[in-house]
């Protein structure tokens, strides 16, 4: 089902947690709410689930305004960060719970539980209790409990954050496949930009309760609406340098970058680490820099650089080597640069 937030506001006392949020999510979309902790993304999800009241504005599922519909009648399924499995029930009973409260008969319940257990490969766990399961297994059970019926949408609140790195990547892929199979609208909350990029059909980036940008992952990466989005999405983070443009050249201390822009006294340039090339020898139109430190990643090398008072990060090939404090030369891919208003942070 499609979901619509219309000028939604949430305050706890005097603190405004979600500020005038408008968001239209199409049927079958996988939307990720992305932002640092305290940005209001979980509160947004909880308002949709009915676990928090809405201070102002309206929330719609399909054409139905659901502000005053109690949680249990919203027909949504949610996966909690803590998984929230019922500790006193077996896995089968856990998965069957949404069916049990809907008074499905026993045979139908058993059949549906078996189907969904097969889908998530947890058939062998059905008679166990949650505490006997590993984190990854619990995660699967929580998912199974969500998909055992056909809700209007799935809500997921950082479902992978309690898993170790390897498992997280694996489950990420499975989640994406699962959503593709089921085709149900999914809203997924995370602070991990990698999860957002890989899973989402569209990403909503939030900061301090305000929506910053709502677009496809690719557009968010390539055309960030402001400095915050540019910095938050991408790892390592985008480099920012404050300077001016004079005669088609961006200038900050020794940094000179040719740009096709009008003169201005104050502008911030943003350059992704992959758009800085690092050389051990001076080349045509390169900028002298000093190596602060290098980090070997195996498949590539992150080079942390000092250029005057500026600190930059560059992505270099795996075989790039340079000692700490050694001189290097930077080539900047100027046509990939982003520009931001230094004061407002908005993309210009």
């Amino acid at each position, binding site marked *: 089902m499609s979901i619509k937030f219309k000028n939604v506001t949430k305050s706890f006392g005097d603190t405004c947690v979600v500020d005038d949020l408008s968001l239209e999510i199409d049927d079958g979309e996988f939307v990720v709410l992305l932002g640092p902790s305290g940005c209001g993304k979980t509160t947004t999800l909880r308002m949709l689930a009915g676990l928090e009241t809405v201070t102002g504005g309206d929330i719609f599922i399909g054409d139905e305004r659901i502000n005053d519909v109690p*949680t*249990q*009648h919203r027909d949504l399924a949610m996966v909690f960060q803590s998984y*929230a499995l*019922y500790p006193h029930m077996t896995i089968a009973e856990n998965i069957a*719970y949404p069916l049990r*409260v*809907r008074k499905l008969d026993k045979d139908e319940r058993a059949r549906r539980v078996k189907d969904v257990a097969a889908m998530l490969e947890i058939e062998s766990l059905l008679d166990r209790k*949650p505490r006997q399961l590993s984190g990854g297994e619990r995660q699967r059970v929580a998912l199974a409990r969500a998909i055992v019926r056909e809700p209007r949408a799935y809500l997921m609140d950082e479902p992978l954050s309690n898993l170790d790195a390897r498992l997280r990547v694996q489950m990420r892929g499975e989640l994406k496949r699962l959503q593709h199979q089921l085709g149900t609208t999914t809203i997924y909350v995370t602070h991990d930009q990698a999860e957002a990029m890989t899973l989402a059909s569209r990403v909503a980036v939030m900061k301090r309760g305000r929506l910053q940008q709502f677009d496809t992952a690719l557009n968010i990466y390539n055309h960030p609406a402001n400095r915050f989005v540019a910095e938050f999405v991408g790892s390592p983070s985008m480099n920012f340098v404050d300077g001016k443009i004079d005669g088609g050249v961006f200038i900050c201390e020794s940094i000179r970058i040719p740009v096709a822009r009008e003169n201005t006294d104050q502008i911030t340039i943003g350059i992704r680490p992959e758009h800085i090339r690092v050389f051990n020898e001076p080349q045509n139109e390169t900028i002298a820099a000093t190596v602060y430190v290098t980090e070997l990643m195996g498949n590539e090398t992150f080079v942390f650089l000092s250029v005057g008072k500026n600190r930059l990060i560059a992505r270099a090939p795996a075989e790039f080597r340079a000692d700490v404090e050694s001189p290097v030369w930077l080539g900047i891919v100027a046509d990939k640069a982003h520009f931001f208003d230094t004061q407002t942070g908005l993309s210009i």
Partner: protein
Amino acid sequence: MSRALRYLLLVLSLVAALAPVYWMFTISLKSEVDQFASPPAWFGFTPTLEHYYDAFVTRSFGEYLITSAVVAVGSTLCALVLGTFAAYALARFRLPYDLDRRVSLWILSTRMFPAIVTAVPLFLMMRDLRLLNTKAALIIVYTAFNLPFVVWMMRGFFDEVPRDLEEAALVDGDSRMGALFRVVLPLVAPGLAATAVFCLIVSWNEFLFALVLTQTDASMTLPVGIAGRVTQYEIKWGVMSAAGAVAIVPILVFAMAMQKYLVRGLSMGAVKG
């Protein structure tokens, strides 16, 4: 060495705790001559059941026992039902003006004055309600006295249950009540058991209000009945001990049956999954 010392202390405290019980038990089995033997006969005496016969067949201790049981079980159930709902509400809902905290403290404050202060008012109230000499009077009073305890104890247990679980139940389509009964209560069952044992013991042993509010054989509880054998002319040690020995049994059995839960219930945090 320290191990030996530990055992020594254990044995000493056990003896201190059990000696009076043992003494009461032997008195209940001794003829009156043996009861007053000097030096006291700890072991060698001819047991007799005459005092038990006297207490439960000739006199009305059987009736007192039933009254005690009805009152204790009745008030425990009332206090548990009312207190559990109150505790759940206080644990889960934030009320405006800090009311949830104030109400909690107010409930607790009802335990801060000595119970005897309320004896006369309660007597007058029960008289006007024509409830003197009824089991209902005792059930009402014991429920009132156990409620604050139930509320505070159960609130602690509810606080231990992660909110996520109920929220998950709600999203899964269950009602508040359904979530409470199907998810939360099973998780706090050990706490419920521990609380029940406590209420039962308090009600079972209660003496003051039972004495004030009941005088007839039909409404008297065991503690009052036993104390009543201390008269101007004689003290019926045998009958009192026999009744006392019987009075211990139900609580002992119940506590043992609940022991499994008691340990879990009294150690907080046990309910987390």
